[in-house]
Each structure stands twice: as structure tokens, then as C-alpha cells.
């Protein structure tokens, strides 16, 4: 199985630690992934809000490249990119006319057979059964697993986990010895692309999430999306302002949590790059 890797723009810069932790985890379990050569940005929220064709063409170029380079599956750690790629793939498969016009725009044929998987699916398929044996230090903390909005919706297209109250991340946390909490904001949006133009609203939306998790005693919030991480971590000052007090609950990626449990060094997982200090091990 030739496994491809699509980092997306955020993993290269603002969410560099996510990139590091995914690669470190893959290496620890001897999984080889190759980055798609000459990958481009998927367009994220900006493209689909401005132009439908652009929002399909940018992912289509990625899918076409992946197909050309012989990948059967592509791991997409960023939930937004995962969502855009999967949705674009689905929509182009539904409408033949649309597909051929997009193929003209990207000047490449698109056979659209590549399977796009998110980081949780990647862990479940390639790593999950081997984790228990490799756990060196149990991650004995109470955690709130935050899935965000784009991993599980639209369910008809993604077909992943449950739309309300998903459980795949919680199961992984249980395996590494953590206690996943039952809480009310598992799939409520963090504020997504409002981060720059309406940081106040991100403070409110992400604030509600942090507050609920903290109220229930979460020692950490586990995420699987760099956008969510950025809003919950980098925008902590706005969140604190909304809640009215300082909350120090760290936000760590699921790959970092598992990485810690199987004994990967914190620096290799990029934990020092977070805005909210990560003291838990």
C-alpha cells in the first residue's frame, strides 16, 4: 500500500508541531509515508466562499497529482484539508460535466480513486492495535477529546464515526490509559477562519469549548485539527477574556498524546511550540 502524505499549509508553519508529531509517531511504528510532490494549498474556507470552481480545482490538482504519483491512500492530518479533499472528490464523482470542466482547469486527468483518510483513520488503520504493547508510560489524565466540526460532517460524504458524540478519539485515549470525559462540545465549531478578522468571535466560540472542558475537570484537550488547535491555543488571551478568567488547560494533538505514551521525547513532538504551556506528560 503506497501511503501518501498531504501536509497542507498550516502544518508547514503555524502548526509545525502537528507535522512533527505525526511524522514522529509514524516513524515509531515503522510506517512509511511519502509527501505528495508539488502539492498545493487545498483552498480552505477562502476558496469555497469566493468561487465554487476554484474550491474544486485546487483540491482536484492535489488528487490528480496523488493519482499520478501512484498513491492509493493519502493521509491528511489537517481536518479542514481532509474535508475539502473528500468533499471535492465526492462532488466531482457525482457530476461528470463538472469533473471534465475542472480537469480542463487543472490541465490534468483526474481518475479520482485515491482514498483520503484523516489522522484518526490513519491511526486506527495502521497503529491502533500496536499501541497497547508499546505504551511505556500510561497517559493517566482526564482528557476532553475535541473533534471539531469538519472531521465528522457531512456524514453522508465522509462516513466517519458518529455525527453527534463521536468516539474514535476517545477510544484511542482509553488505550493509552487516559480517561476521556463525556462533555458537551465535542463537535461544536471553534470559530475556524474567523481567527483574524473576528478574533472576538473566536474568543467566544472557543471560549465555550474551553469552559465546558475545564468545568468538567479536563486536564488537557485533545485535538485532531490544526485550525482548532490554533484557535484554542494561540487565541487563549481572547478566550480568557470571554470566560473572564485565565484558564491554563493545555491543548495537545492526538498524535502528541499517543507519542508521549509510547515514549517519544516531548521536543520531538513539538510540545515546546505551544502557546499554552504543556506541563502534563
Amino acid at each position, binding site marked *: 500500500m503506497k501511503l501518501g502524505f498531504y501536509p497542507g499549509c498550516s502544518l508547514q508553519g503555524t502548526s509545525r508541531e502537528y507535522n512533527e508529531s505525526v511524522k514522529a509517531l509514524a516513524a515509531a511504528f515503522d510506517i512509511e509515508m511519502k509527501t505528495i510532490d508539488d502539492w498545493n494549498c487545498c483552498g480552505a474556507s477562502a476558496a469555497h466562499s469566493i468561487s465554487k470552481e476554484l474550491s474544486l480545482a485546487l483540491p482536484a490538482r492535489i488528487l490528480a497529482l496523488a493519482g499520478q504519483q501512484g498513491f492509493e491512500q493519502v493521509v491528511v492530518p489537517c481536518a479542514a484539508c481532509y474535508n475539502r479533499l473528500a468533499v471535492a472528490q465526492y462532488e466531482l464523482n457525482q457530476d461528470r460535466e463538472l469533473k471534465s470542466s475542472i480537469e480542463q482547469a487543472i490541465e490534468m486527468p483526474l481518475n479520482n480513486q485515491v482514498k483520503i483518510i484523516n489522522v484518526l483513520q490513519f491511526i486506527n488503520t495502521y497503529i491502533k492495535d500496536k499501541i497497547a504493547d508499546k505504551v511505556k508510560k500510561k497517559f493517566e489524565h482526564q482528557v476532553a477529546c475535541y473533534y471539531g466540526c469538519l472531521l465528522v460532517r457531512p456524514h453522508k460524504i465522509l462516513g466517519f464515526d*458518529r*455525527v*453527534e*458524540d463521536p468516539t474514535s478519539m476517545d477510544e484511542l485515549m482509553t488505550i493509552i490509559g487516559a480517561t476521556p470525559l*463525556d*462533555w*458537551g462540545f465535542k463537535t461544536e465549531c471553534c470559530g475556524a477562519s474567523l481567527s483574524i478578522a473576528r478574533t472576538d468571535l473566536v474568543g467566544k466560540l472557543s471560549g465555550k469549548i474551553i469552559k*465546558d472542558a475545564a*468545568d*468538567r475537570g479536563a486536564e488537557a484537550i485533545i485535538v485532531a485539527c490544526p485550525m482548532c488547535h490554533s484557535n484554542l491555543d494561540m487565541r487563549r488571551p481572547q478566550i480568557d477574556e470571554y470566560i473572564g478568567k485565565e484558564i491554563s488547560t493545555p491543548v495537545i494533538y492526538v498524535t502528541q498524546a499517543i507519542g508521549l505514551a509510547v515514549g517519544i521525547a516531548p521536543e520531538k513532538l513539538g510540545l515546546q511550540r505551544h502557546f499554552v504551556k504543556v506541563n502534563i506528560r
Partner: protein
Amino acid sequence: MAGVEFATDYKYMCSDPGQNLIKQAIKEHHLDGVVVGSCSPRMHEMTFRKVCSEAGMNPYLCEIANLREQCSWVHEKCDATTNKAIEIVRGLVEKVKRNKPLQAIEVPISKKALVIGGGIAGIQASLDIANCGHQVILVEQSPSIGGHMSQLSETFPTLDCSQCILTPRMVEVAQHPNITLYTYAELEKLEGFIGNFKATIRLKDKSVDFSKCTGCGLCMTKCPQKKIPSEFNEGLGTRTAIYTPSPQAVPNKPVIDRENCNYYKKGVCKICQKFCPTGAIEYDKADKFITEEIGAVVVTTGFNVLKTDFFSEYGYGKYKDVITGLQFERLASASGPTLGEIRRPSDGQIPKKIVFIACCGSRDPAKGLAYCSKICCMYTAKHAMLYQHKVPDGESTVFYMDIRAGGKNYEEFVRRAIEEEQVNYVRGRVARVYEKNGKLIVKGADTLLNAKPVEIEADMVVLATASIANNGAEDLAQKMHISYDPYHFFAEAHPKLRPVETNTAGIFLAGACQAPKDIPETVAAASGAAVKVVSLLSKPTLVREPLIAVVNRCAPPQYSTCVGCFMCQTICPYQAIEREDITDRRTGQVIKTIAKINPGLCQGCGTCVSFCRSKSIDIQGYSNEEMYAEVSALLNK
């Protein structure tokens, strides 16, 4: 046209003057065939056939040429259409020339009715039929009759105590000399046809001999298995393994639930037997099967409600204080698990803030149920009112989409809830419910206020879940060969004019098994079905149309061209074909076995005719000769 003695035309042939025209023509011209060019035979074939019969001509020598639905209504006005009309008439003229006079068939009737399902519909139907002097067998699956109505606390719009108005009827059924009641029993098999059904009923073994049991209830107090969730209390209370569903059960004698009994599971205990003062308890007996000859069947198997685990956005069933409307009925009921006090199932506290959510699962194509469950608007208003009566300082909110209160006094009832009982009605659906610190956070919206979000921290949430077909509805329908819709509600013969009949002759239905219904409609339907049954059973014999298939017979030694391959028997959708032995009258030896059509069951569909390799079957009234003549006339202009 050759052979046509008289032709005329009249605008409203089906009216009295028109009918008289036909009668006169038959008498004057000594006609032995009539073709009426008119609307569909489904409308007036019977009218015209009766007219001919009154004029002394065999009614089956009258045919209808459908010039309306099959001609004038589907084509433009032009010469081609007129020509088509002429051709249709010509075809039928040629057919009628070959028609043979036929006599209606008389079939004997068993004077007994079978009612399946002992809820209010079954109880009402049984009483109505029994009071007309006919025998009724009432079969009920659970250990007691009463159905969902016995679980209700009070009924809308009168707020009558449900059990108080129901139990007298239940007792009447048990005591009625014409009703034989089998509880803890199921229909195993139904064979036969209208007037002549054979029903096999499975009497599940109760482990208790009802002839010895006095209903003292001592066994129930001694049974060590006390924590079984009670079905009657919708899982909010418990019962023992030897149990009656409720204190007012009819019959009020217990049965043993084998799946939870210590003896049947592990081979130990037997305490109930030890303590029974009359020695009524006997273990390990097998189910009994009885067969009854039945004339008509009424299906009144009722409905079920969706459980809370169906709803992903309301917690997948994991929040104890999110309950269904039926569970709320048990809380409000004086004989319920909380003796009529509204208390939270999680901690027994009285909820001070309660939210009712309407349309849960109903009117929801995304979840698979596009229909409206009809009764929820009313029972939600009732629940909110009962809550306000029992918890005067409590705050209740109903999230609704529309209010459907079309029955008598229904609208006034709902307005009373809103205007007098201080129930808060908010128009908007609820997006989700989640739990925090022991409270249920309800996120709804008020669409009448620009869809502003409304968030309520409630102590309890009651979901008005959809009414759905009962468990096993599909299997039962297939056993009885009645139709059902994609939701497994049983199909009525015609939605407007034949609501209590099925498409299977002799089987009627009433109540919520056909579609969600309230009690007044259910009772009306039950009485309606009862009348249909009584009209059937009151006749000396059953008269049927003779348009059925017949296997030919001829002189010995052949007796019939049928070779006995019985392909027809395999293929007949109505199980109407039997095997008949032709025996030598002197020696009794079987000469050959041929097919025989049961005149009571055959529906004249013609499937056997097309399958018969030796062309030994023909349909009376639509014989091969007649049909070829009609088709030939249509083709040979």
C-alpha cells in the same frame, strides 16, 4: 356491427331513466347480451349488471366498454379518438357474443371471528361482535389485555383516568360468554379464505395453571428476581420473573418470564412453586397449539413508540432524564413507579424545569419517518398540563413546529394549556440536548422571534417520539397475506372509502396498526370493523363473483386435460389451488390427481391460466375464447 340488435345513446345511462332504457330494450328486443359504452367498470359495472338481472337477463352477459378513462379522458378531441372508441366497443361486442351465463358462487361461513391484539381496538371490536351474538376469539401477545391505553395516566381532551374507563371494558371482555380470551398467545398460522379461515394459535406456556391459580399474588412477593425492567412501566420500574404486568391486569394471574427466571436460566430456585397455596405452578410444559375455524379476522395489533436511543442529537439514549412521552405517562400515573409524582429517573428529585420536545422522529425524512404521528401535539399539551398540576411552581416549555389539534374539543384543550396552565410554548425545534452538572442543556430556537436561539437548563426532557408500527408487524402481515406500507403499517383497502378493510377478503383492521390514531378514532374504527365482520357472519352463505378460474373437465377416460403438473399451485398468489383425486367410483382407486381451484379463494388474476402448459384452466367471464374474440376484433379493422 353484426349481431347488434339495438343501439342507443343517453347522457346519464347510470341514472334511473337510463337504466329503464336498458331494461326496456332487453325486454323488447329479447337481448342476450349488453355492452354499455361508458366510464370505468369500477364505477358502474355492478349497477348495469343489476339492471340486466332485473330485466331477466344473466348479469354476466353485460360488459362495460370503458370509453372515458381509457379513451376520451386521455386523448385530444379528434377523429382518431372517435375511431378508438368505436374499436373498443367493437371488441367488447365480439367478447359478449362469447360470454356464457354465470351464477354467483355461494361459500359457507364459519360463524366465529378472530381478533388479534387486545388493546382498546381489539377490546371494542370483540365486544361489538360478541354483543351481536357471534363467537369471538381474542388473542393477545402479552400476559394482559389493555395495550398502550392501560399505560396512560389520563386521556385527552377530558383528562379521564385512562385505566378507569378502560378496565370495565377489559373485565367485560373477560366475562363475556361469547368471547374466548387467550393471553400470552400468538397467531402461528392463518390458512384458508374468507368465511373459511383456519387459524393456528400458539398458547405460550405460562408455567402457571390458570384453572388452579387464584391470583393471590404470593408468588410475586417471594420471587428473588426483583430487578427486571418492567415493560409496562417502560423500563422506569421493575418487576419479578413471575409477574402480572400491572395490578389491574386482565386476567390477573401471573406468568413466568422464562428468560429471566432463575429456574429456567440456571435450574435453581422454584420458590414460587413452594409457596403457591393451590399448587398452580408447573414448570417445563411446552407451548400448546390450538386450531380454530374462523369466518373473519380483525387485526388490532396496535403500535409502538420510538425509544430515546434513536436520537443522536438528544444523547443516544444515555441520559436517564431524557425520556419518551410514554415513560412520562408512567411517571404521571398513580399506579406507576413513582406513584404519580413526576420525579427524575436519575436521582428521584422533582424536576423544577421541564422541557417537552415535539416531533421527535416524526415529520423527519432525514431520519426516515416523513409522516406526522398525529397524537403527540395533544399528549404533549396534556403532559405539560399534568406537570403544572402536580408541580405548581414548576416551569414547563414545549418546543413545537405546528399544533395539530383537529378533534372535538382538542383546540380548546391546547389553548387551555397555553392560556390557563402557564405552559410556555416556543415555536422552534431543538438542535441538541447535552448534560452538564446534572442538568440537561436544551438548545432550541424561537422562530417567531427571528429564530433567536433559546437555551434552557432543564431538569428533565420529554421527547414526543414518533408512533411506529409494532414489533413483528411485517412478519404478521406476511403470515396473513395482507399488504403493508414501507413503514410496516398495515394497508387499508381504500384510504377514503374502505378504511377498516384490507385487500385480503375477510381480514379487517382497526386502530393504530393501520396508522397513528387517537382513542376516539380507534374505537370508531374498531366498531366499524366489527360491523363488517357481523355483516359477513350474519349471512347464511357468502356470495362471491363467479369470475374465477376453473379447471376443465371432460368425459372419461381423460376426465380433464390437466396432467397434474401443479405448476399452477406453485404459482398461485392466493394459495387457491388444491389437488383433487379422481377416483374410480367402484374400486376407490385413484385414477389421476388434477388441479382444483378453490372457488372461495380464487381472485381471478389469471396467473395459472398463463402458466398451464396444457391449457386446462380458463377464467369464467374472461375465457380464452372471449378474450381472443375481443383482441381479434380490435386488430382486424
